[in-house]
């Protein structure tokens, strides 16, 4: 089985990133890391590939200069990576990202595409579904368990109550929720081998896109403004004089919790 895993490199979440004041785009530093939520997709991809003697190819649209996050996923065991990197892609919105990824995945061939439910920097959460639309294949979402065999994809889709069992014919796109498997550590051997694994770098033109099709020019989305999250209000402190439980009950009742 040929498994495509979408893997995004994002600014290190440990160091707060800046937004460019004109367009409100995330300013991408030279050093980017693998989006933590994508480690789950990579893990599930690797498990399915191991079970089916398949391959895992990573797809990432990413500014040039950093491959650190991609190397991490290769060190975990992915076979190769396709990185679409082009100054013309700067400012691409979710729709353009999906279009570009779809073109790269189509070009490579695939049986299954795995993506995270949403990235940890942009949080649009719509790329995988748009990608499926571009590829013209079914899209299953919020998988906490994935099986793929005999041309069928079967997942447990997370719901507030539990899960639904959902099936689709392969090829298909599936999004996996974070925290559902324990992503493996890249082994030292994997890390040493990762630098020898093939990383194909493609430009927008390689995928047949003109400058107007992609980037800010090709994107319909404009971020009009950004508002900081209001600072959290200080909590209410109840001193226990032996009767504090009454006060707590009152607060809980007021909040309609009890």
């Amino acid at each position, binding site marked *: 089985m040929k498994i495509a895993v979408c893997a995004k490199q994002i600014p290190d979440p440990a160091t707060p990133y800046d937004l460019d004041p004109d367009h409100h785009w995330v300013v991408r530093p030279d050093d980017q890391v693998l989006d933590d939520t994508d480690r789950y997709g990579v893990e599930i991809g690797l498990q399915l590939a191991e079970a089916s003697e398949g391959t895992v190819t990573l797809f990432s649209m990413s500014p040039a200069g950093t491959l*650190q996050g991609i190397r991490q996923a290769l060190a975990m065991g992915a076979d190769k990576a396709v990185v679409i990197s082009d100054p013309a892609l700067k400012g691409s919105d979710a729709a353009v990202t999906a279009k570009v990824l779809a073109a790269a995945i189509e070009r490579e061939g695939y049986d299954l595409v795995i993506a995270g439910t949403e990235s940890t920097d942009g949080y649009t959460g719509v790329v995988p579904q748009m990608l499926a639309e571009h590829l013209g294949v079914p899209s299953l979402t919020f998988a906490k368990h994935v099986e793929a065999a005999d041309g069928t994809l079967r997942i447990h889709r997370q719901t507030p109550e539990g899960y639904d069992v959902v099936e689709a014919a392969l090829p298909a796109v599936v999004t996996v929720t974070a925290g559902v498997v324990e992503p493996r550590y890249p082994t030292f051997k994997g890390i040493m081998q990762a630098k020898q694994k093939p990383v194909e770098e493609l430009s927008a033109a390689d995928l047949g896109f003109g400058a107007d099709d992609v980037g800010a020019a090709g994107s319909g989305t404009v971020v009009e403004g950004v508002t900081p999250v209001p600072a959290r209000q200080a909590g209410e402190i109840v001193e226990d004089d032996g009767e504090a439980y009454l006060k707590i009950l009152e607060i809980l009742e007021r909040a309609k919790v009890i």
Partner: protein
Amino acid sequence: MGATIRPGDHDPLDFLGIDALLDDEERLLRDTVRRFVAERILPDVATWFERGTFPKEMAKEMGALGLLGMHLEGYGCAGTTATQYGLACTELEYGDSGVRSFVSVQGSLAMFPIWAFGSEEQKRQWLPPMAAGEAIGCFGLTEPDAGSDPGSMRTHARRDGPDWILNGTKMWITNGSIADVAVVWAQTDEGIRGFVVPTDTPGFTANEVGGKMSLRASITSELVLTDVRLPGDAVLPGVVGLKGPLSCLNEARFGILFGAMGAARACYEAALGYARERIQFSKPIASFQLTQRKLVEMMVAVNRGMLVALHLGRRRDAGTLTAEQVSFGKFDNVRQALEVARTARSILGANGITLEYPVIRHMTNLESVYTYEGTNEIHTLVLGEAITGISAFG
């Protein structure tokens, strides 16, 4: 990019920007070990320390990751650079010196001599399971009456037909009671030689040393060898003389000079966090000049020691590192780390004496690190001889 750097722009945990001196692969390896330590070591290490145990099962997890014998080539080993090995030691010792000791002993003291001086057969038999953590090794050099002066060891091996017969006692042997194989150094008619001793050989016993107040999350044992009969091919063919064990120690010390900075960083981080939050006299204790002095001394020591380590790592990878330069690193980085730990302990006040915080654990651990692998005094004499040409030993 903005060229002006404001005071608050400095990363208090990487003040000199040492991170930028690492390449992507080094960072990935470091981050992987950091994650492993955060997820698999830190949640439980205080309990191991309190109970005085090291869970043997950890060996397999460490093996799977590639931590065991990581800097060796072939035979199931990962084949990292020396700098990468050092960075892994820093992260492991950020967790606990005992955990790093396990990895040092397995890789540098038990696997390394087999890898460097062993026969092809010894390598094939022992290195792959040791790299995987399925077989645990120990290194028996020190004796009750031979510590800093290992040349005075009394353990000896004599020929008996084609076999060897070993007798003697080894002391302070890390992993001794959990080991499957011991590399034991003994006097022979030809000089000091190394023996690969499966620990189930009749006449071999290991007794755990109790009552330790340091390195408690690590097993330390006495090895007693009573007429241990070994086949002729149990000897390491590739080396005769004290340079055999000393070359192993040189490997391990290299890891320690990186490792100590992990313990120091953990103490500094804990103290910095604590000092910012602990309020006395209506202010965070970090606002007192005396505390700031302590924090700054710690920060400087951690950054400087890390630079020394990285520099020695680069020299090692370039093939230009001398044993005396390793002594420099072991001598200074460990004493600095101990000083950082003690200072951190004082900043934490009473909380500094509990296992709730990592500080006292590191502080007492570092007392062992100060002594083993060449005491601080012995490395002083090595450096003294290196710069004066005069030996002051004995």
